[in-house]
């Protein structure tokens, strides 16, 4: 645990609503795995507030999240598309995201945040940086405990209150800019 002088300073924490995390790995030489995954979900108008993609040798690994409300339909359709020996797909229900900001591109802030998970045994399924946030995909049920732990391990403004998803965005169909 960190002493006061070791604690990095951040300005805030944000937590998501309940999500489903999806881990997809293509072990065959499918060079378009991420395009196909995103296409399946876009066709169903399902948003992904988090996507990470990595490509190593002949394998593509994707971690993404969809809203809990899209769980049943999303699982059904993705399981039907990414079936067979070349794919491994896993759905993690009751997932959530916690983000801290600003990360200041700091390795210290990153490692301290990751240590919160490691020291508490709370799983982290994926993480990605954005312009100012580090977003961790974890268990939804652990979010409140993580808020407490992060508040202990970082210096936050005294009047800080975690941000929670409040705005709902509804997008109607837009013309596709590219053909399949």
């Amino acid at each position, binding site marked *: 645990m960190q002493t006061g002088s070791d604690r990095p300073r951040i300005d805030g924490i944000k937590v998501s609503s309940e999500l489903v995390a999806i*881990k997809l790995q293509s072990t065959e030489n499918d*060079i*378009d795995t*991420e*395009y196909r995954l*995103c*296409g399946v*979900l*876009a066709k169903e*108008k*399902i*948003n*992904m*507030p*988090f*996507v*990470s*993609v*990595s*490509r*190593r040798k002949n394998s593509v*690994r994707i*971690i993404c999240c969809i809203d809990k409300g899209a769980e049943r339909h999303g699982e059904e359709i993705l399981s039907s598309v990414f079936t067979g020996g070349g794919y491994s797909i896993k759905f993690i229900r009751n997932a959530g*995201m916690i*983000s801290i900001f600003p*990360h*200041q*591109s*700091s*390795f*210290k802030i*990153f*490692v*301290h945040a*990751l*240590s919160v*998970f*490691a020291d508490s045994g709370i*799983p*982290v*399924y*994926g*993480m*990605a*940086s*954005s*312009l*100012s*946030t*580090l*977003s*961790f995909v974890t268990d939804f049920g652990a979010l409140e405990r993580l808020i407490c732990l992060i508040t202990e391990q970082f210096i936050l403004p005294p009047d800080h209150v975690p941000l929670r998803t409040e*705005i709902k*965005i509804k*997008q109607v169909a*837009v013309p*596709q*800019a*590219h053909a399949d």
Partner: protein
Amino acid sequence: MQVVAVYYEEKVKTYGLNQIKGLSLISSVIDLQDNLANVRDTIDSIQDQVKFLVAMLEETEGTKARLYFLVSSENEKKVVEFLNAGAKTSTDAPGTDVISPVELVYFQGPHFGDRWGIAYNAFGALRKGEIRALVAALSGAAIFLVFPESTSDKAVLCLKEVFEVP
């Protein structure tokens, strides 16, 4: 009270495309239980001298995770040393991989993290140009794409076909 705001966009709006070349993509598998404490202890060796452009993590198996960092090429050595320090106590340390040079394109737009289809537009544009990202991180309202050397110029042209760039 409910507030409703509506706007129409012919092409998906962005606040601009940014491109950086001459970078290093470093990845390493660490055990969050066994190795992270060592990594944390060595962090003072780099402190704020080195900044990451992109950081990403994928859970692999058990308590292990693969970390990805995108940094400027001149900082590659320091980051590799710092990550390797974390692997000292692991008997099956796989080491640290480096791809260099690589190139970064990143951009953000209104409510990117809240709207369906944005990632599909981006990957579709790249697919049309037969370009694939080595690493892609889409969270918040921004998209970060890491490309092999000499491919980001074409990636930018492809992305401009589907995204409005001021």
